């Protein structure tokens, strides 16, 4: 068996749009809109530069629900470029782009193999079928809850065996349990390299025998998809030994940063600290655009300033004026303020007056970790509102959300009742 080289990518989600953003400018919006395409283009460029044998894509190429013609056209355009350079491509579809999903009736370019609803085996190089074989299966429909791993049957003459699959390994990935399977299932299938997709955070589940890899999505699309994103360049030598090299190909990087106002004296100090934070975000992004979320925390004399109406918009405007028009830009999409007043809460709790009763009530709810029914009912005026509910699905605070909600409500109550922060 001779050496093989391929790029393993997944979850391109072409033309799907960034979520969780509270604001953007026109220029930033343009970059964000096309970020998934730019990242994909980087994947293609990587393949061409590295002259790999093949590009493997493990599902969720695009979101069928978006019905984006552009996504499909650009996808095939990329594969066509590879084909012209003699690089093959193997694609399976996942829950976001199942076979029965919406799709423009486009003809895949030559040198591209799309897997169907059953596991197929395709030689990595038809000219040398014994070198390596790619096994793969596409979701026939979105909701595949069946473990697909047992369907993979390896033939002994197929050389290096690669399994291309969109699935959820284990049970706690933070993603929906489509095609669920276990590590053991994967280990016992006789595949040499599992090229998986679905989980957006990259992880190497197994480094050998077999190698099991989630490359993650090549371009983060929401606030929690922070850090570098990309694909794996995989090399298998003649003896089947695999080496992995991660290549970051994202164009916009999500980030978050915290400014602690404790010990700061003026609003200008906060602005300066925020600028320092952004500078270090940009420095860490390796020349990429950064979209970040800023948390202003801490306890101190700036509590009033940071809580005043207009503070967040002033700060955000300041930062975006300073960094939003640069190339690469750093865009502050949101600022969360969770500063605490210098009120001595313990003293208030002991004062025995109305405020102490109030704080005691809040603590009771916080400890119970659930919302009282009548409060929940009040909140549902909005969350169950006939027009709003479909956009607020799962937005009703739970767990940590309840704690945050109570923190904010308590802060407001104390602002109102205890003027100037003195009990």
């Amino acid at each position, binding site marked *: 068996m001779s050496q093989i080289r391929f790029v393993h990518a997944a979850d391109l989600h072409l*033309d*799907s*749009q*960034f*979520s*969780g*953003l*509270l*604001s*953007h400018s026109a220029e930033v*919006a343009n970059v*964000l*809109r*096309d970020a998934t395409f730019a990242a994909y283009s980087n994947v293609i460029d990587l393949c061409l530069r590295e002259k790999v044998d093949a590009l493997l894509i493990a599902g969720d190429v695009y979101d069928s629900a*978006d*019905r*984006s*013609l*552009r996504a*499909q*056209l650009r996808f095939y355009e990329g594969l066509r470029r590879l084909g012209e350079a003699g690089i093959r491509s193997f694609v399976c579809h996942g829950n976001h782009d199942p076979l029965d999903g*919406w*799709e*423009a*009736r*486009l003809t895949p370019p030559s040198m591209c193999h799309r897997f169907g609803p059953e596991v197929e085996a395709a030689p990595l190089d038809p000219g040398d079928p014994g070198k390596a074989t790619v096994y793969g299966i596409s979701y026939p429909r979105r909701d595949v809850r069946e473990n697909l791993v047992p369907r993979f049957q390896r033939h002994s003459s197929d050389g290096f065996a690669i399994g291309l699959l969109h699935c959820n390994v284990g049970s706690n990935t933070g993603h929906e349990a489509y095609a669920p399977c276990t590590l053991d299932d994967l280990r016992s299938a006789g595949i040499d390299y599992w090229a998986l997709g679905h989980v957006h955070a990259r992880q190497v589940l197994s480094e050998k025998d077999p190698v099991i890899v989630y490359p993650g999505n090549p371009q983060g699309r929401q606030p929690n998809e922070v850090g570098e994103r990309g694909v794996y360049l995989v090399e298998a030598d003649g003896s089947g030994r695999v080496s992995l090299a991660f290549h970051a190909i994202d164009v916009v990087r999500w980030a978050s940063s915290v400014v602690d106002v404790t010990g700061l004296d003026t609003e200008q100090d906060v602005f300066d600290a925020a600028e320092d934070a952004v500078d270090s975000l940009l420095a860490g992004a390796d020349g990429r655009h950064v979209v970040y979320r800023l948390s202003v925390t801490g306890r101190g004399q700036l509590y009033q300033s940071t809580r005043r109406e207009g503070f967040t918009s002033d700060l955000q405007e300041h930062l975006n004026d300073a960094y939003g028009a640069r190339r690469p830009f750093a865009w502050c999409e*949101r600022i969360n303020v969770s500063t605490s007043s210098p009120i001595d809460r313990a003293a208030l709790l002991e*004062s025995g*007056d*109305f*405020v102490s*009763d*109030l704080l005691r*009530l*809040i603590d009771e709810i916080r400890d119970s970790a659930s919302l009282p029914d*009548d*409060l929940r009912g*009040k*909140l549902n*005026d*909005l*969350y169950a*509102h006939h*027009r*709003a509910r479909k*956009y*607020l699905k799962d*937005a009703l*605070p739970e767990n940590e959300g309840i704690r945050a*909600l*109570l923190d*904010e*409500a*308590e802060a*407001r*109550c104390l602002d*109102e*009742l205890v*003027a100037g922060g003195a009990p």
Partner: protein
Amino acid sequence: MRIKRIHVDGFGELSGWDSGDLDGPLTVIYGPNEAGKSTLLAFVRTALFGFPDKKRADFYPALRGGRHGGRLTVIDDRGAEYLVERYENAGGQAVRVTGPDGRGHDNDGPLRVVLGQASRPVFENVFAFSLNELQRLESLNEDDVSAQIYSAGMGAARLPAALKRIDADRERIFKGGGSRQEIAAILRDIEEVERKLAQTENDAAEYGRLLAQRKQIEDDLAGLEARLSDLRSRQREIQHLLAAWGDAYALRECEKKIADLPPIADFPEDGVTRLEEAEKRKKEYEQIWRDARSKLEDAEGEATLEIADEAILGHATQIDAIREGTTSFRNSVRDLPERQGELRGLERDLADSLLALGPDWNEERLRSFDTSIAVRDAAEQWQKRLDAAESALRDARANAERERRPLEEARRASQEAREKARREARPELDEDEIGRRRAILRESRTLLKDYELASLRFADQKEGARRASPPATLPILLAVAGIAAAVVGLILGRDAAILGGVFGLALLLASAYALLERRRSGATGSIPLAEARAALERSREALETAVAPLLTGIPKDHDLDAIEQDLDRAGAALRAWSEVQREVEATSRREQQCEGALQDATERLEAARQELDRAQSAWAHWLLERGLPDTLQPGAALVLFERVEKARDFARDAVGEMRRRVGAIQKDIAEYARLVAPLAREFGIQAQEDDAASIASAAERLVARFGAAAEGASRRRRALERAAEARKDAEAAERRLQDARAELESLLEKGGTDDPEEFRRRAALYAERQELQRQSRDLEERLRKEALSGGLSIDEFCQRLAATNEDELRSESGALEGELQEAEAKLKELVEERGRVLNSLEALAHEERASDLRAERELLKERLRAHARRWSALTTAAWLLERARARYQEERQPGVIQHAQDFFRTVTAGRYERIVAPLGQQQIEVIERDGTTKKPEQLSRGTQEQLYLALRFGLIRQFGDQETRLPVAVDEILVNFDAARARAAAEAFAKLSETNQVLVFTCLQNMVDLFTSVVPHAPVITLGESGEPPAAFKRAARGGRQRLL
């Protein structure tokens, strides 16, 4: 805090009112209506909190006089005493607070501390209130009151406002059913984006359809293009064949004609042209030769002709002179009579001029008469001399006339001056006398001054002697006053006696001093007085002596002034008289001068007259010497000289010249006749020398004969020259003619004949063959080109041409053209359609709208979530506050309510058990013994008032617990209570007075009785007139102090 004493300087009806010490725990202030109870209460408020705004009802100006304001003494809870002085003045109000340490403050800062930070509203509403305020629920609603009370009591004073603000914030974000809230706006935006997105969903289906359409179009295009290519190729071939058709026919014809022509192998180049030229040349040279021969014969004939009068040619010089003189001769003959006539006219003019000069004037006298410059100058000198003499005579006469008038004026002035002098009398005093008297006057004035000075000095000395011993009145008076003062002092008493004694002694001492002083200054005086008297005497004598010539005795200033005025007047009269005398002298002098001047002028006139006579006789003599009449004036003589000169010039110039010209003409005529006559006779022409006409005719004929002879000689010479030249030309022409003949023969021989006509026929045949061969070559070349552009060899092309005919080709080409146009139109259509499809595909492939819309949707969703989070926090905050309030209310009742409840229960004898005040709300409910809840408006009026009194009680106690115990002043608050409840309330006040000072204001005797019964030693202060004391007076007098003020 308690009020120790009230002092009103001026406040409303109160003026100079003082309460005295208020040392009891409860004091009743009794007074009928309008006695000043409310004013007093208002004063207490004002003293504590300052003057209210002037527009307020409780602003009381000082109506009864006194300074507006007053004093208040208060004692704080620790027993320290403060004096508060508060007055209003023009510049505003002034306060002074004096603390227990005796230090004064110009602000009420220390007072605020004593008041426990209670504000005016708190004091007015809680501590000092009347029935009116009790009846008004609103009076408890003052924000400040509730804020102070509740913040002191519960820490929830801001709760209602907080809830209101939070609710407002919530509803700005979201409100069920609302459409203007932020969330409603976001939802609208999302739905709009969704709607637009739905419109983009068909893009992919459209893309597939367009792809299929593109394929179909491209297939159709390929087929159509192949067919078009075939059609075009056949059409091109037909066009080539048609284009060559004419040329092919012409070629065949050409070749046939060549074959028909007889063969002529060689022929001279341009044969016919050359033949014609040779023939032409031969003909020309023949003509030239003939012309030359004819000219030679003519010239030779002319050269042999005879010439008439050939001999005259030998007189060429004379003939030339005759010819040249002809014109001059004719002119002279013609002009002579005219010139002679002119000469006669001129001589007549000269004779006229001589006659004008005088009878004895002729040309001879004219020539000899002296008109030189010297003579004329002499005449001019005479003229000047005579003019000067006449002019001098005229001047002298005018001068004598002029001198006569001043003389008359001078005589008249002199006469008048003398008359005036006769009238003027001579003055009394002369100048010397006046000067002498003025000197006496000056001296007298000096001496008078001395005398007056001496008199004064003497008078001073006399006065000095009198002052040296004045009477001793002042010291005596002083002494009397001193004694009197001492006596008065004794009468008035001991103290005054000492004072009077001291004063009297002082006066005595002063009188003693005055006496001493007087004695010291009176000692010197009598010696200078005598000297002054002597000096006075001396100066009087000097004065009298000096003034004696003018008057007697001692003069006064005004006497001297009168004398001086008299002297001034005498001086003036003397000056006037002298002036008149001077004028008489001046006018007689002037008269004498004028008489002298007239005498001189008369003498000068006579002299001038004599001079003129002398000059006139000398001039007459000068005229006679020159043969001129002695009556002639010098001017006329000068005119005569002028005329003589002019006539002399005329005789010399005009007449002389004309005589010369006539002579010259006559001489010319004679000379010409002498030249012509002899020659004429030689050649037989008649000529009379004195006959001008005959001479002229002869001259003419001579000249004509000479001209004819010269002409004949010239002709013969020219004929000889021409003959020689013609002979040369004839020889040259003959040689050229022979050459031309030889050339012609040679050309004919080259054309294969000796006949020019045959030569021409053969030339035409040769040219035709040449032309046909050229055409044939051209046609072949064109056919070859056509074949080549059609892609065929010439042979194949010709074969195809041969296989068809032109009509066939044309009809096939027409059909093909139709098919081609149809196919091309179709092609264009397909290409356009393909373009449209490609554009649509391109547009769809790059459609970014959907991406933008989805990005927008994500943004809006996130905004919605963010708003939802904020709204949730606000909703939670509101819920928490409400819940905490409910719990607080449930579990704790604030102290105010507790105290109020105790009071209310007591007053209502237990009928009402509880008072409930929802937290942070100005709402009170009462709960009856049986559990029934009532709102205040459901209670009877009295019970309502009891409830509000109870609440105030609660507040007073609460305030006392939290802050300080302020005095309580109540004004007629129990009037609506029944007896039992009034007593209970009074008892409660009695109990309250153990902690807070209580002032009860009332106009009702029974109230006085009620309070004095529950507090036995309560002092009663009665306000108003001091007439009949109220009933309480006596009763109160038993225990308390009665004060009537």
